C-alpha cells in the first residue's frame, strides 16, 4: 500500500480533518459509560481486559528486581488459577528491556518499551532514533513513542510526521504505538488531527497518554481517537489499534473503555492485537472483580499479590 503522500498533501490532509463537537463527544461518551455490563458479559470483558493490559512501570526507581516481579505478575496474574490469562505486554523504560526479555522468556507476554525521550519528547531526532534502535536491539517487541508536542502545537506537522516515519523505520519488526499525550493537546480537534497524522505516518496503534500528564486517558478523548481510527480505516483499509493509558485503575473504568470500543470500532477491535490498556494498578482490581463475579463475594486484598 504505497500511496504517495507529498507534504503538500499532508497540509491538505490536516486541513481536511473534520472538527469534533466537544459537547457532543462528551455526551456520547457519558451515555456509553452508562451501559450496564453484567454477569457473563462482565466476566468476558474482565477476561479481555487482562489479555489487553500493558502492565506498566515507568519510574526512575525501576530496577531489574522490580521488573522481574512485574514480569512474573504479568505472566501469571493469579498464582494457582490457570483460568486467568497473561497480560498482553510489560511496558517499561528502554534500559529495562533486557531484564524484561529475560524474565518473559517462554511466555506469551511481549516487551513494550517507551522511547523517543519519553515522556516529553523534547530531544534530538537522532537521539530518539538511536534510542528506538537500541530498545529493539535489546529485545523490545513493541515501541511506545511520544510525538513531539512542541512541534505539533507550533503547527509543524511535517516534523511530527517525519519523526514518526523515521521511528517506524527504526522499529523494524517491532510494533509501533504512537502516544499523542492528549492532555497537552488542548482540544478534541487537535486530538483528532494528531490521530490522523500519526496513523498516516505509519502508527500501528495510537495511544492517549504517557501517564505523566493530567488529564491522561479520558473516555471522550478515547471516543474521538476511535472515531478517527474508524474514518482512517474507511479511507485506507488499514486497521490501527488503540491504547488508552493513564488513570485507568478500576474494572468499571476498563469496562467503560471496552464498551466505547465495542460500539465505535466493533467486535473486531476487541482483541489484544487491536486494543491495549496501559495500566499499572488496574490488574488487581480486575482480578478482585472476577472473583466477586465467580463467588458472589469480595475477597480480601491480601489474596492478590502486590508486585
Amino acid at each position: 500500500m504505497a500511496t504517495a503522500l507529498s507534504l503538500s498533501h499532508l497540509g491538505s490532509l490536516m486541513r481536511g480533518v473534520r472538527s469534533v463537537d466537544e459537547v457532543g463527544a462528551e455526551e456520547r461518551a457519558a451515555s456509553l459509560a452508562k451501559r450496564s455490563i453484567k454477569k457473563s458479559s462482565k466476566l468476558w470483558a474482565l477476561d479481555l481486559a487482562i489479555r489487553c493490559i500493558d502492565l506498566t512501570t515507568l519510574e526512575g526507581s525501576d530496577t531489574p528486581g522490580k521488573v522481574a516481579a512485574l514480569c512474573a505478575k504479568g505472566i501469571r496474574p493469579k498464582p494457582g488459577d490457570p483460568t486467568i490469562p497473561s497480560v498482553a505486554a510489560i511496558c517499561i523504560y528502554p534500559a529495562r528491556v533486557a531484564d524484561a526479555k529475560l524474565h518473559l522468556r517462554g511466555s506469551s507476554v511481549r516487551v513494550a518499551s517507551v522511547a523517543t525521550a519519553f515522556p516529553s519528547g523534547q530531544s534530538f531526532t537522532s537521539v530518539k532514533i538511536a534510542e528506538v534502535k537500541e530498545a529493539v536491539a535489546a529485545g523490545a517487541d513493541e515501541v511506545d513513542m511520544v510525538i513531539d508536542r512542541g512541534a505539533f502545537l507550533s503547527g509543524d506537522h511535517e516534523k511530527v510526521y517525519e519523526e514518526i516515519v523515521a521511528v517506524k523505520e527504526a522499529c523494524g519488526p517491532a510494533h509501533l504505538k504512537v502516544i499523542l499525550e492528549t492532555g497537552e493537546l488542548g482540544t478534541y480537534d487537535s486530538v483528532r488531527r494528531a490521530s490522523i497524522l500519526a496513523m498516516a505516518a505509519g502508527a500501528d496503534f495510537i495511544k492517549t497518554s504517557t501517564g505523566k500528564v493530567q488529564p491522561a486517558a479520558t473516555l471522550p478523548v478515547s471516543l474521538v481517537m476511535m472515531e478517527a481510527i474508524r474514518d482512517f480505516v474507511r479511507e485506507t483499509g488499514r486497521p490501527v489499534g488503540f491504547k488508552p493509558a493513564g488513570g485507568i485503575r478500576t474494572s468499571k473504568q476498563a469496562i467503560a473503555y471496552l464498551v466505547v470500543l465495542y460500539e465505535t470500532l466493533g467486535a473486531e477491535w476487541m482483541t489484544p492485537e487491536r486494543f491495549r490498556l496501559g495500566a499499572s494498578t488496574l490488574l488487581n482490581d480486575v482480578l478482585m472483580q472476577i472473583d466477586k463475579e465467580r463467588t458472589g463475594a469480595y475477597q480480601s486484598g491480601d489474596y492478590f499479590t502486590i508486585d
Partner: protein
Amino acid sequence: MAIAKRPRTLPTHAPLPSPPPDGGRGRTELAKQTFEYAPAPESIDHVKIDPRYGLFIGGSMVAPHSKKRFPTINPATEQKLSEVVEADEVDVDHAVKAADKAFEGWARLTPSRRARYIFRLSRIIQERARELAVVETMDGGKPIKESRDVDIPLAAAHFFYYAGWADKLEWAFANRKPRPLGVAGQVIPWNFPLLMLAWKIAPALAAGNTVVLKPAETTPLSALRFADICMQAELPPGVVNIVTGGGKTGSLVVTHPAVKKVAFTGSTEVGKLIARSLAGTDKRLTLELGGKAANIVFDDAPLDAAVEGIVNGIYFNQGHVCCAGSRLLVQESIAEPLLEKLKLRLGTLRLGDPLDKNTDIGAINSKAQLEKIEELVESGVEEGAVIYQPECKLPERGYWFPPTLFTNVSQSYRIAREEIFGPVLSVLTFRTPAEAVEKANNTPYGLSAGVWTDKGSRILWMAERMRAGVVWANTFNRFDPTSPFGGYKESGFGREGGRHGLMPYLELV
C-alpha cells in the same frame, strides 16, 4: 527546508503482529466467545400496580360514576397492566367542580406557601424516581434509560423551576398585575406522560390556578401515580384532579363551562377540533401539536456529532416526539459519507425489552400507532423512496418497528410531509443555505429545527430565517425548564417552559 520538497510515500506496513501463542497460560475459554451484553433488566419488584384505578377528584381516589373501564397494556408484552375508568360527563363535572371549589383557597394562598407545595411535588418525584421510571416504561414502552435519565428528572426539574416563580409573579411581568385564571383543563399525550403532566401542571399551579388533567388513553398510570404524590405532598384537595379516559373524556374536560383555560398537547388533527369547539367561548387556549422538523447538516459539520444528533433526533423515544428531527436535510456534498456513518450507527442501536438498561429503542406505544407507522412507511416505498433498515430482530410479542431510514425522498412524498411519529427518517439533500431554509420551512408545521455547522454566523443566519419555535445548533432534543417551547403555524401556539410558560395561565392586568 530541504526535506519539504521531496515527495514522500506512506510507509508500507507490516501486518499486525500475530496474537501471542496459545500454549500454556494465556488464552482462556472466554477468549473464544464473542462479546454480547448480558440482559440487564431494571427490577420491577418494588412497583405495585393496582388491578384497577378510580379517579383522583377532590384530593382522594374516588369511585367513578361511569361504569365503563378499559385496560391499559404494556406495549412491549401486550399484557394488561391495569384497568382504568373512562370518565363520563358526571365524573368530569365532579372533577371540574372540585377544582373550582379549590381555586379560591389556592389562589389566595400566600405565594411562598404555594411554592412550598410545588417544591414538595418536585422533591417527591425525585424520591420516587425509580418507581416512576419503571411505571413510565411499562405503560408506554420507552426504554428505561430514557425514562430514568430524561423523563423523570426533567419532570422534577419542571416543578422545581416553576415552584421558584410562584412567589415572584409580580416581578415576572413588569408593571402588570398577574392574576390566576381559574380551572385549567389539560389534555396530554402518550409520548412523555409524566413530563407533559409536569409541563402542564407546574406552571398552572405556580400561577395560582387549579387543574383537571386527562392523561392519554394508553398511558394513564404515571398520572395516577402522580395523584398519589399529590396526596403524599398533602396538596389541598381539588387543586389537582386527574380523570382518565379517551377522546370523549378529553372533549368533556375542554368544553366544560367552568374551565377557564385549556391546554392541549397532541396531534394537529385533535388540536384543530379543540380550537373549533372553543371558538366563541371566553376560554384561553394553548396548543402544542405536531411537527416535521428538519435537521440540517452542512458540509463543515462535525460529522460524528451530527450522526449522534440525527439518531437522537429521530430514534429517541421511538420517534414518538413532536419535535423529532424527522427530515434530515443534508448538504449534497457530504451526503454520502454522512449516510454511510449513519447506517453504520443504526446497526449498533439495540432494540428490545424497554426495561433492559442497555436498550436504545423500545416498543411502539400502541397497536394503532404501529399501524399508522406501517402505513406511512409503505407509502414511502410505493412513492419510490429507498428504504434502509439495519438487521434487527424484533421480539415476538408486542408492538415493534425497526429504526428506518429513507433516501431518495422528494419533498412531495407523504413521508416528507406528514408526521409519522415513529422511528422513520426521511433524507433529503440541499445545495445552498438558502435552499436549506426554503425546504426546512416548506411544511405546514414549525415546531423545531436543527442546524449542524462549525460556522457560528451561519447558525444565526439560519435561525433567523427558520419558521420553527426551537432551533437547536449542533445538538437536538435538548430540553430545559427555563427555555420556552412551542410552535409556529400548525404546530400550535403559546409557549410552555420558562417565564413565557406562565403567561397562558395568568391574566395580566
